[in-house]
C-alpha cells in the first residue's frame, strides 16, 4: 500500500493474468484437440481444488466430500440434461450440491477433526451405494446417458466456472467473511464471542464450495456421455483436491491453482510416458512433497524468494 513496488507488482500480476486469460480463451482456435481436453481436466481440478480450499483452507475442517458434491452435479446433468439447456443444468447441478452441503453441514459441522473427515468421506460412499441400489432395484439399469456438447463447449464452460470460482475465492479472502472464516479455524469459541455467527458462516461457505464442485460435475458429465454411480462418485475425486491443495500450499490463492495445474499435468505426463510405473513415481513425488514441502510449492517459492531478497540486502 505505502510502498510503490507493491503497486508495480500488482500491475505486473494483473498483466500476467490478463495474458493468461487471453491465451486460455483463444487456445481452442489453434491448439490441438488433445491439449484442449487436457486443459479442460486441468481446469476441472483447479475448480475442485480452489473450491475445496475456500472452505477447508481457512477453517481447518478437512472435507473429503468433493466427490459427493461432484457426483451430485454429474447426476443432475444426467437427469436434467435432456430437459433444460446446459447453462441451466449446470446451475441446477451446483444448487443441488449446495442443498446437500447445507443439510450435511447442519448435521456435521459441529464435529471436529477426524470425525468430520470420516463423515464427509462416508457421505461419498453412502451416496454411491444408495444410487447404485436405486438404479439396480428401481430403475433397472446402472448407467445413464448424458447429452454431449462437444469438447470446445465443455472447455469454455469449465473455463467460465474456473474464472468465477477464482474471483469468488479472491473476493472472499479479502472480505470480512474471509477473516471470519480464518478466525473460526484458529479458535471457534473466541470467534463466536467476537460476534461471528460461526454456524451460519461454516454452513454457507461449505455450500458455496459445494456449488462449484456440483457445477464442475454437471459440465464434466457431458464430456463422458455415459455415467454410472462408480464414475460419478469416484472417491479419487475426494482425495485429489486435498492432495493438490497441500501440494500447492493453501496459504495463498495461487497455491491451490498452481498445485492443481502441475499435479494434473504431472499425472497426465506420467501416465502417457510411463504407463506401468506412473503410480509408483507419482507416489514418490507425493511422499517427497509432503516430507519436504510442508507449506506446499508456494511456501517453498516464498522461502526461496526471501532468501534471494535477503542475499540482495546482504550485498548492498
Amino acid at each position: 500500500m505505502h510502498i510503490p513496488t507493491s503497486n508495480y507488482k500488482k500491475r505486473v500480476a494483473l498483466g500476467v493474468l490478463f495474458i493468461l486469460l487471453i491465451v486460455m480463451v483463444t487456445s481452442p482456435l489453434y491448439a490441438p484437440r488433445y491439449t484442449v481436453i487436457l486443459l479442460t481436466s486441468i481446469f476441472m481440478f483447479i475448480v475442485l481444488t480452489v473450491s475445496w480450499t475456500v472452505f477447508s483452507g481457512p477453517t481447518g475442517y478437512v472435507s473429503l466430500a468433493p466427490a459427493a458434491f461432484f457426483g451430485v452435479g454429474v447426476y443432475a446433468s444426467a437427469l436434467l440434461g435432456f430437459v433444460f439447456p446446459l447453462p441451466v443444468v449446470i446451475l441446477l447441478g451446483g444448487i443441488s450440491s449446495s442443498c446437500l452441503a447445507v443439510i450435511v453441514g447442519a448435521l456435521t459441522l459441529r464435529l471436529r477433526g477426524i470425525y468430520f473427515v470420516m463423515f464427509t468421506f462416508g457421505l461419498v460412499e453412502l451416496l454411491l451405494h444408495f444410487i447404485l441400489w436405486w438404479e439396480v432395484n428401481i430403475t433397472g439399469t446402472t448407467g445413464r446417458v448424458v447429452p454431449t456438447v462437444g469438447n470446445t463447449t465443455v472447455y469454455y464452460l469449465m473455463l467460465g466456472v474456473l474464472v468465477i470460482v477464482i474471483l469468488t475465492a479472491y473476493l472472499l479472502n479479502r472480505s470480512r467473511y474471509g477473516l471470519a472464516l480464518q478466525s473460526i479455524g484458529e479458535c471457534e469459541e473466541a470467534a463466536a464471542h467476537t460476534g461471528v455467527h460461526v454456524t451460519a458462516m461454516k454452513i454457507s461457505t461449505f455450500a458455496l464450495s459445494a456449488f462449484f464442485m456440483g457445477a464442475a460435475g454437471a459440465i464434466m458429465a457431458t464430456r463422458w456421455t455415459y455415467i454410472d454411480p462408480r464414475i460419478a462418485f469416484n472417491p479419487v475425486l475426494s482425495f485429489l483436491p486435498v492432495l493438490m491443495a497441500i501440494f500447492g500450499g493453501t496459504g495463498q490463492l495461487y497455491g491451490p491453482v498452481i498445485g492443481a495445474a502441475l499435479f494434473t499435468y504431472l499425472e497426465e505426463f506420467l501416465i502417457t510416458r510411463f504407463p506401468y510405473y506412473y503410480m509408483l513415481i507419482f507416489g514418490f513425488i507425493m511422499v517427497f512433497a509432503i516430507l519436504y514441502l510442508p507449506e506446499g510449492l508456494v511456501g517453498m517459492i516464498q522461502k526461496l524468494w526471501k532468501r534471494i531478497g535477503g542475499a540482495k540486502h546482504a550485498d548492498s
Partner: protein
Amino acid sequence: MPILEGMRVTKHFGGLAAVSNVDFHVEQGEVFGLIGPNGAGKTTLFNLISAVLSPKSGTIKFKGVDITGFKPYKICRMGVARTFQTVKVFPNMPVFQNVILGSYFGTLPRMSSRDASEKALEILEFVGLSRVKDTPAGDLTLANQKRLEVARAMATHPDLLLLDEIMAGLNPTEVAEAMEMVIRIHNRGITLIMIEHVMKAVMRLCDRIMVLHHGQKIAEGTPREIADSEKVIKVYLGEKSRA
C-alpha cells in the same frame, strides 16, 4: 433497571452444582467483582452470561431482555463482550486482524472497512499494542495476549465487558498497567464484571463484589463490607487474626 440481572441461575455438571440459585444484578456503569476460591463457579457464571452454557434453570436478563438460550454471537452483538481465563487469541493472525474482526462483527451496524480499521487502530492505541499490530498474536507475551483479548472485546463496542482473570500470571508492573487499563475502560462508560484473584486489584477497582463458594452466593457488597464479612474471611481470605 440493572444492565444485567440473574434470577436463581443454576447449572449442574453431572451431580455437581457448579452454580446454584444465584441471584445477582449489575448496575449500569458499575465495576462488579466476582471472587471466590478455585472451583467456586465464577467462570461457569461467565459462561452462562455469555451463553457458552445454558442454565439448567433460572433466567438472565440483559438490559431487560431475557437472553437465556441465546447464541454467543448474538449475545456479543447485543453488547456483551468477554475475555477468556486461558487466553484465546487467533495465534496465526496479526494483532490488527484479531482486533478488526471485533469491529466488523460487533454491536455496531455494518461498518465500512475504513471505519472498522480506524476503530481497530484506535483501540490498539488505547490498550497500548500499536507497536506490535503486525505481529502474529501467538508471538506476543502473555501480558500482551491478555491485552489483545481486551482489545478484541472492546472492538465489538460492548456495553458490558466480562474480564476473566486478566491479571493472573502477570508480574507486578503488568498488574499495575492492567489495573490502570481497567480504569480507563470504565471511564469510557463500559460496565465491567471482573473475576480476579489479585485482591489488591479487586478491592481497589470494584464498586461491588459478589463472593461465590461451591456454586452459591455467600456474600455481596462493597469491598469494605466483603473485607469485613466473617463468612468470607472464613472461606476465602483466611484466619481473621492475621487480618
